[in-house]
């Protein structure tokens, strides 16, 4: 890969120079960063800009380096997995990507643009949607309303038009409702449209969260343990759904999952995290064979026994 030739650049010193040079407003411009690509993109995406690039991303909580030196590139239609033992820092990475946390160092490029100065809400509008490990639905609102809230930025009428019930309001609401029902039917939730989201069974809540995230029309979808709490048949359906979403919407999907069957089956690239650092990166076959991964999951002694 040509990108490897860029590795000679030391990323750390490049940041230092940039930080001291550009004060205030200048910084808001997209940075021209030397990209250190150590990830391999799927062949079909290789000649396009990656949808997401993380360069030396890191965050510390007090003394704890929850994520450190995280590098990743994601193809535009890639399904990638992020795995690792509990507390490895996977969710923290999602929180960094969506700006729930501000990185202590490093760069995130979304479609080639730096999102250092974007808020969570702006990041979503720029194209990242996510689900949460501990489901965060609008519990008291109906299933349909949850997806309609996801469609918020896809509707364009003003408050005055809403209060006066102008034609634009009716039209936008009608279109949005139809679209919302389509998203719901992708996940077999259309019968539950009028029920409060909180009354759905656990698996259905997870699917609703994905529907709501998709409704924001993202180019990158982050799924935090989408199969948690699902039974094997639900998980099998979810796997099909994830692939189908990628095929229909032509978006990239990055998922965190403990279900190895799911990860190994649908992910094209996998990054393994332990203690906040990437310990292995590659295709499912690479990962399966990697001794460092086996050690991280089973411990040194367990790995030796194998």
């Amino acid at each position, binding site marked *: 890969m040509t990108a490897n030739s860029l590795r000679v650049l030391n990323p750390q010193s490049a940041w230092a120079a940039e930080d001291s040079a550009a004060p205030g407003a200048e910084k808001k411009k997209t940075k021209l960063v030397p990209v250190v690509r150590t990830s391999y993109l799927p062949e079909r995406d290789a000649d396009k800009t990656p949808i997401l690039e993380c360069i030396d991303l890191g965050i510390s909580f007090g003394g704890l380096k929850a994520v450190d030196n995280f590098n990743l590139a994601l193809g535009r239609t890639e399904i990638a997995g992020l795995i690792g033992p509990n507390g490895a820092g996977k969710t923290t990475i999602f929180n960094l990507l*969506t700006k*729930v946390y501000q990185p202590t160092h490093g760069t995130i490029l979304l479609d080639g643009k730096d999102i250092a100065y974007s*808020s*969570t*809400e702006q990041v*979503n*509008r720029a194209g990242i*949607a*996510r689900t*949460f490990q501990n489901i*965060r*639905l*609008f*519990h*008291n*609102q109906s299933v349909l*309303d949850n997806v*309609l*809230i*996801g*469609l*918020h*930025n896809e*509707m364009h*009428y003003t*408050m005055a038009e*809403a*209060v*006066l*019930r102008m034609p634009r*309001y009716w039209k*936008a*609401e*009608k279109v*949005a*409702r*139809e679209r919302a*029902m389509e998203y719901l039917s992708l996940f077999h939730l*259309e019968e539950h*449209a*009028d*029920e409060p989201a909180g*009354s759905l069974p656990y698996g259905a809540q997870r699917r609703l969260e994905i529907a*709501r*995230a998709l*409704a*924001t029309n993202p180019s990158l979808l982050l799924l935090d343990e989408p199969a948690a709490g699902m039974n094997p048949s639900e998980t099998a359906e979810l796997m099909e759904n994830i692939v189908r979403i990628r095929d229909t919407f032509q978006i990239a999907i990055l998922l965190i999952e403990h279900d190895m069957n799911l990860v190994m089956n649908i992910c094209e690239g996998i990054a393994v995290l332990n203690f906040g650092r990437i310990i292995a990166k590659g295709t499912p076959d690479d990962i399966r064979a990697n001794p460092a991964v086996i050690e991280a999951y089973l411990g040194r002694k367990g790995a030796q026994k194998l």
Partner: protein
Amino acid sequence: MKKLSISKGTRSDLLTCAGVILAFVVVSALKANGGLNRSQAGMLVPVCCYIVMAVSLNLTVGILGDLSLGHAGFMSVGAFTGIITAMSLAEKIPSAPLRLALAMVVGAVFAAVIGFLIGIPVLRLSGDYLAIVTLAFGEIIKELITCLLVGVDERGLHVIFNFNGSRNANDLNLGAAGRVIVKGAQGATGTQTIATFTAGFILIMITLVVVQNLIRSRQGRAIMAVRDNRIAAEAVGISVTRYKMMAFVTSAALAGAAGALFGLNYSNLAATKFDFNTSILVLVFVVLGGLGNIRGSIIATVVLYILPEALRGFANYRMLIYAVVLIVVMLTTNNPVIKSYRDQWQQKLRREKGREANAA
């Protein structure tokens, strides 16, 4: 796919409006036929004002989910700017209803501007801190209006801020035909009482249209999303500050209009009328009617405003009964045991309905 008929929510909104219209017709007929005594007739305009106050506060407390203890502050901004508008235009606009409408618009605009300015620092906070700061702002507004001296003459409006208490109405230097509108701590004196029950009814209807239509729009859904789960709302691209501000300012504007109507219902009105107690009174209406429940706010306001008057015969026990009713209603509507029992019952009903639908 399901047909897009009138949704359940919209039907409920229309029912609320129909109820208000019906009540207006009945009360108007009673009034015209002498069915109301003087004190009862005198309560009509204030009841309308408090209904608008309660519904608008419900937008902040119930729909946005931020506890505000300074709602009376916006009412007083509306009241005094409304009075000044109506009084200073007495000669230029002879039509009283037109002047009243203009006063309410001016009251709403000023209250909205103040709401926006207060919202900038306040909406960064949440929970108890937000409540305490809104309380403080409500008191600040009251104190500032207490310092206000306003008069009008042929040269126009004269305004003095009497901060150290050393000045009085004479310092306004009014011309021969001038008159004082607001006299510091005494408040507005000699106001022409042009407020009418019909205006109150129209204001309630406008409030209902604004608040209910807002709730059932993308903006309203965004406001409720921020209330229910701020992080999830941000994650789906909703600007928290923007929608918090939208709800807060709308709420303030409606309170301002209510204040203008209220102010023009009394010939004498001091700023101390809009103190902490008034804010709490309106909050009680909202909480008792149910957070986020617009119809509940209206019913609670009417019942709780009229109850003390109806209990006049009991004189000494009046406030005691009032307090006991408050506690009982609070316990029965907010008791977790009763609530969970009610939810179970509702779910059962829904399931049975579903079964019937499947069988059919």
